[in-house]
């Protein structure tokens, strides 16, 4: 053995948004983290919007990223329980998503919110399905025709035949993208807001796993940065690339760093009525060559202006 044997360095998984997108392909099934208009990996979504990617199959608890990608004709299929911008006392609907669905521009697989969890969990655990009562009696089969039932091999509650349950199939993802509050360069990450949502399951269900984060810190500083070890819920076994993207979830919220940019989101939601309005919004806000240019333009806005 040589006295000067060199050992491999730990992987440094830092990437740019465009380097993430370069690893994606048209036609892929892509899971997007967050929930509604909360903690969405928007900087990577913006990179997808300025890329040549098309024919994407999205799986998500949907927010404005779905509407933007649909409006930009990047989406061929969507697996969803809802798509909501999350504002107002009553749920407001997502106009670009609605337009795509109503025109037949996208195919859809509809699920109950909990079935999405189960499908991702099944994929993460490498089992073909998870049985559930969810969906029985509803019309989900009309918008999810592949959904099948399974008969329990065990006696029913009355001792008779086993119950018939929905067999929620595994939802395998080619790629998952999520936005976390803080991470290290190896792919460990923490959420610091109210809810992890299902980001961990999306990453575990995916072949290629990418996160963006408000900031990258040294591994030893993660607990201090997150506030508590129980917030370190994403680990590097399930992360292939990390993008440092301050304000990267904009215009969605990333508590506690920032709330939703309501004015910006409202401006975006108002662009669905005419193609010119969307084209104008897209060219003004979604066509910057880099995320840094987008953030600079945001920072340069007059106070209170979207």
């Amino acid at each position, binding site marked *: 053995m040589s006295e000067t044997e060199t050992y491999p360095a730990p992987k440094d998984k830092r990437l740019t948004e465009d380097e993430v997108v370069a690893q994606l392909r048209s036609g892929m099934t892509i899971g997007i983290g967050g929930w509604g208009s909360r903690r969405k990996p928007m900087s990577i979504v913006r990179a997808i919007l300025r890329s040549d990617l098309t024919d994407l199959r999205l799986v998500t608890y949907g927010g404005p990223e779905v509407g933007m990608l649909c409006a930009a004709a990047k989406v061929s299929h969507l697996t969803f329980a809802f798509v909501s911008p999350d504002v107002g006392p009553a749920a407001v609907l997502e106009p670009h998503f609605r337009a795509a669905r109503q025109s037949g521009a996208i195919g859809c697989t*509809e699920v109950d919110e909990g079935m999405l969890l189960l499908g991702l969990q099944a994929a993460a655990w490498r089992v073909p399905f998870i049985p559930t009562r969810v969906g029985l009696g509803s019309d989900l089969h009309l918008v999810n025709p592949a959904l099948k039932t399974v008969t329990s091999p065990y006696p029913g509650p009355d001792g008779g035949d086993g119950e018939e349950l929905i067999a929620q199939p595994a939802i395998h993802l080619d790629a998952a993208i999520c936005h976390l509050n803080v991470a290290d360069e190896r792919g460990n990450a923490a959420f610091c807001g*109210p*809810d992890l949502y299902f980001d961990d399951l999306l990453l575990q269900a995916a072949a290629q796993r990418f996160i963006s984060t408000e900031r990258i810190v040294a591994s030893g500083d993660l607990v201090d940065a997150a506030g508590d070890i129980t917030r370190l819920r994403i680990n590097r076994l399930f992360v292939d690339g990390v993008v440092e993207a301050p304000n990267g979830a904009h215009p969605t919220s990333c508590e506690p760093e920032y709330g939703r940019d309501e004015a910006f989101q409202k401006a975006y939601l108002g662009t669905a009525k005419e193609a010119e309005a969307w084209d104008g919004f897209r060219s003004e806000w979604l066509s910057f060559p880099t995320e840094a240019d987008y953030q600079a333009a945001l920072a340069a806005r007059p106070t209170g202006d979207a």
Partner: protein
Amino acid sequence: MATDLSDLVTRADVCAVAVADCFRGDGEILANPIGTIPMIGGRLARATWEPDLVMTDGEAALIANDEAVPAVADRRYETYNPYRTMFDVVWSGRRHVMMGATQVDRFGNQNIAGLGGTPQQPRTQLLGFRGAPGNTINDTTSYWVPQHGPRVFVESVDIVTGVGYDRAAALGPEASRFHEIRRVVSNLGVFDFETPDHAMRIRSLHPGVTVDEVVAATGFELVIPEEVPTSRLPTSDEFRLLTEVIDPKNTRLREVPQSE
């Protein structure tokens, strides 16, 4: 009180009390009313005769506050309840949710997903199925309709998101053993399914609402009892809680405005 309470009580107050009464007897379960008046009504039930109800802050926590929507700094946290945990609760059966309904039919089938067209290409895309299938097959469910009309109360919903009694019956006793649609509360009255075939029945009409008015605003034949009760008013204590503690900013009047 010098003034007669009935002169002060609004339709919104009656609705809130009717919502609260939906949770009567529920004990220590997660009461999860969604919407302005539903949340106010749920808080009222807990602040009075159902003290063991567990309720959310609308986000990821279960809180003890009586205020309908307390400021973050004022929230008295009981426990952490992220979405993952909420599904654990839903699937455990320890929840009574009150959802909205774009359409609801005589057997309590609900639609919040889409109108017209085909299931794969609705003329009007709505929210999606959200958690309705799981809620209705696992737990007691009630509905809140702030604007009672024939386009909401329909003969047959365009697509079934929340499972009604006819669908549950077709599943058989095992699969439907956790299913219960308890009430529908609207701005006009309270409705239940306590009939032989679980068809929707008028349980009570709010003060000033006539049977004819409700029949005209309903797209199917309601079961009408011989004596139609009038929805109760809040007690003086309930009225004080509503106006001073739970909803002092009167947000409930924005959801159900008081007609002169």
